[in-house]
């Protein structure tokens, strides 16, 4: 614990606190968690990255259907491999923390749901989203007919400008009216130990 604190540095820590919705303890815990995920040779790099596989195998993300998307959205890697630096990791935690605002949560939720990264949720994205939500097994999957119906219903509700896709502002409009989005879109996973 002491080593992590000294590794981070006081100024950096306070800056991280300023920039995220996390408290000091949470940042320290996150750092500890993060360093645990690093392999030995990575630790010497100036900005070490945790590969996506490592992040995905964290117990908190293991059963999340959006885990790959989450990694991709928060990764700053140039290779698009979903690897995370510590700062990316903090971004991730901050967005999912209890006190993050609706605005930031909905922004990241939108980017997570936007599977092809084109800035809108089209029917392809929505289909993938439904498949993620209903799981991998066949008995929980929807039939193509149901899927079509569902997607057209969703578009009818939330696609205000009728361009066949849901864009960010439409998405935020829908989300902001929802009573339980903020409470569900959180996960402080540096808190959970195995």
């Amino acid at each position, binding site marked *: 614990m002491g080593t992590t604190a000294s590794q981070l540095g006081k100024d950096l820590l306070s800056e991280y606190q300023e920039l995220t919705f996390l408290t000091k303890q949470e940042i320290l815990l996150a750092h500890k968690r993060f360093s645990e995920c690093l392999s030995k040779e990575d630790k010497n790099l100036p900005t070490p990255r945790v590969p996506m596989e490592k992040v995905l195998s964290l117990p908190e993300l293991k059963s999340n259907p959006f885990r790959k998307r989450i990694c991709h959205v928060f990764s700053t890697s140039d290779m698009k491999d979903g690897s995370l630096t510590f700062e990316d990791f903090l971004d991730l935690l901050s967005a999912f923390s209890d006190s993050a605002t609706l605005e*930031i949560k909905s922004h990241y939720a939108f980017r997570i749901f936007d599977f092809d990264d084109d800035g809108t949720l089209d029917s392809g994205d929505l289909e993938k*989203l439904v498949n993620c939500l209903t799981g991998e097994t066949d008995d929980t999957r929807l039939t193509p007919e149901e899927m079509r119906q569902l997607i057209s219903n969703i578009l009818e509700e939330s*696609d205000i400008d009728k361009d066949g896709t849901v864009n960010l502002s439409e998405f935020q409009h829908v989300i902001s009216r929802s*009573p339980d989005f903020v409470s569900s879109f959180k996960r402080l996973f540096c*808190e959970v*130990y195995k």
Partner: protein
Amino acid sequence: MPRKSDVAAKIEDVGIEIDGDVSDSEDDTSRRRGNRRPAAGRGGARGRGKKPADEDDEDEEEEEAPRTRRGANKKKASKSRDIDDESEDDAPKRRRGGAANKKKGGKAQDSEEDSEEEKGNKRNKKGAAGKKGKEEETKDNKKKGDAKGKGKGKEKEDEKDKKKKKKKESSSDTDSNADSEEESMSEGEMERLKEEVEEKKKVIAIMRNKPWRMKRRLVYLKECQEFVDKFEGALGKGKGRKFYAYKVMMMKKWIKFQRDFENFKTTCIPWERKIKEVESHFGSSVASYFIFLRWMYGMNMVLFGLTFGLVVIPEVLMGLPYGSIPRKTVPRAEQPTAQDYSVLMDFNGYCKYSVLFYGYYNNQRTIGLLKFRLPLSYLMVGVGTFGYSLMVVIRTMAKNADVGGGDGDDGEFTFAWKMFTSWDYLIGNAETADNKYASITTSFKESIVDEQENQKDENIHLRRFLRVLANFMIICCLGGSGYLIFFVVKRSQEFANRNDLSWYEKNELELIMSLLGLVCPPLFETIAELEEYHPRIALKWQLGRIFALFLGNLYTFLFALFDEVNNKLDEEVSIRNASIWALKEYYANFTLHNNDTDVTPPPMDPSDVIRGPCWETAVGIEFVKLTVSDIQVTYLTILIGDFARAVIVRFLNYCWCWDLEATYPSYGEFDISGNVLGLVFNQGMIWMGAFYAPGLVGINVLRLLSSMYYQCWAVMATNVPHERVFKASKSNNFYMGLLLLILFLSLLPVVYTIMTLPPSFDCGPFSGKAKMFDVIMETIDLDLPAFLGTLMGYAANPGLIIPAVLLMVLAIYYLNSVSEAYQHANAELKKKMQMARDEEKNRRNNTESTDQVMKDLEDLLPNRSLLPPAPPPETGADNKADQGGKSTKVRPGTAGKDVNLQKDVSLSSPNPNTRGAALTDDLKSALRSDLKDVVLALLMTPDQFDAHQLRQATKV
């Protein structure tokens, strides 16, 4: 000469000095003013350039606004200021440079400054020497301005003077140097700087709300902070400066403290990690129980503090010790068994005559050296317990309602919400996740089916019938259990007169109540299966039903208790006489034996005095017993029902003929409703019993503490996630509502006893008074000044109380009607918003179509020779779709006339020779001049176009 005196007085005040100059040379100022505008523009441009290039538009706007304001400031202050145009441009830079100079220290700069002063003019353009450079510039300006004017020589002298002084200053010490620099800042500049600093601070504060990358935020934050750090100290002037710097420093400290405090607070929240762990395994609904438990613990800690701090501990420290008076002594008849385990477990013997119960407290008005008014404090704490609980419950409810604020009830976005918000990101357990997948799929399918066939008549009838049937059965159950308890209570009253009772007969009432509490909830759950509600709604029904059951039990118990209390009160009258008689007899005997009337007899041994029944202690004991038995039953249920079951299922599974884990009996689910209700009723018991048994609060705190660890362990070790995982976002207030109801219901009997029943004559803090609240009257009479007493007397007058009550009723009525009006307005607004949204939709479709077509044309026309244009059928299809109205690809939303025109365009384009060649040519030529107008003319009806042109004309 103002100029001269100025110069002589202070060089730092360049601005004022220049004022004199300005009055001398009017043309100079005008020139300056003229230059200022472009300078401001440049400044803006530079400011933008300074920022990271990839900044959001929003930010630029934010920055722009203050900048223009600053520009205005500049103009206003132009007379009182003398800053060159260039210096304005890069003022921040300069200031940075200046600050850097400051740090370097004056002495090191000495030589540098000398040389700089010689260079003079050149420095102007470099603009890197900070304030001093500016001052130099000032002088240059002055030179120019005064070139034709008078007093050239004087000016030069002044300059020399200045230089000398400056040298002195800079060599003297760093501080004065810095001072002069800062104070040379004039009002407007200061303001500008202040604004800039404020702005940066604001940016820092909202930085975390920006969905940027961390790296970018870090860089930007550093930049801002550097800026703020540098210039914050430089603000303020004269004597105010130090104060300002101090203020800034304190501000920083305060912010840091706040953050630390926040950190500290989060560390202080107990069991956060435990709850998160449970949350990740079982979803938020199970966790909501634990959060509720933690909340209860917090509230009970406060109650505990009140009771122990103000009643129990003063009594222990300052009150009479055990054995000094009859109420603090075990009677002689009970003494042999007073330490038996079974007696102590029944809270008799030493327990009964301890500080835990009402009877132990003495009715001395003040105790100890501090003259602590224990009886008054006792009553106040009793009332305060209820007051505090009510306040906390209501405040929490209001807070919860506020958080829930979103208008979740209008079913606009059912599908979208299901889609976007149904995943519980807290789930970190594979099994729970699987259950969640299944439940999401079901809910999708259900809603699709609902949408497809909105009503199934026969199904609804069947369902209604089933629901009615279920409710009927449950009411039967409730009635049955009520009768059973009534019967048992009657029987126990019969038993009360007999002594040859078996263990069962003694504990019949508690046993039956616990059994009912065990059997009925699962029964209700089974019956509720008939109703097929959504689990969240089903949970509420279940809670309500169990609540009714428990409430019935509790109130039956209370009535039985009241019967007992009344019996005891009757008994008391005779005992009172008997005890007085006994005392007299004792004294008579004493004088008879000693034959000496002068000697005062020693007081009777406290254990021999005949006691009254002390109904308050009896009530307290009942509640403590009930609470303890409740704890035992709960813990045993968990141990047997969950743990033993889990162990059996786990280990017998190896040698059993069917799969115990997958089929019957499998592992238990966590029973949210039962646990929550158990907690709520337990709390009700505490509220009711706390007045008669102050120790009960302590017992309850222990119970909640142990229960937190025990249940957390049990749920993680032995339970499986619910089959249908659901979120419990809104149940919290429901729990609170139950708690409030119970609080109110437990308030009633306590207040009734305090207000109407006479306290026992020989035990408790109120003994000897007609009513318990007489202690307040006594305090008013004896301790407060007389006029307050009369005031109170007036206040208690019905003539005042009735109007007060009336006023309150009126206030409630008024507030109620106001809130209704708000609700109405809210509904209206919602309707309006809906309408606006529809309108927006329509309008957007229209504009979209024009834009789209325009774009198409734009794309199309220049390349027409190369590429085949858009085929006309598409347009037709689009139009059709538009008329259909419900396609995802709605484009042109125009009237029939326009459609024809449009068709003309698109049709004419492929073969200009045959059709509408002239039109196309016109179009082509016009496109070069004004594409938009032509297209608009084509798309709009003539009237619309006229209106449009009019509008355009008026706009210009």
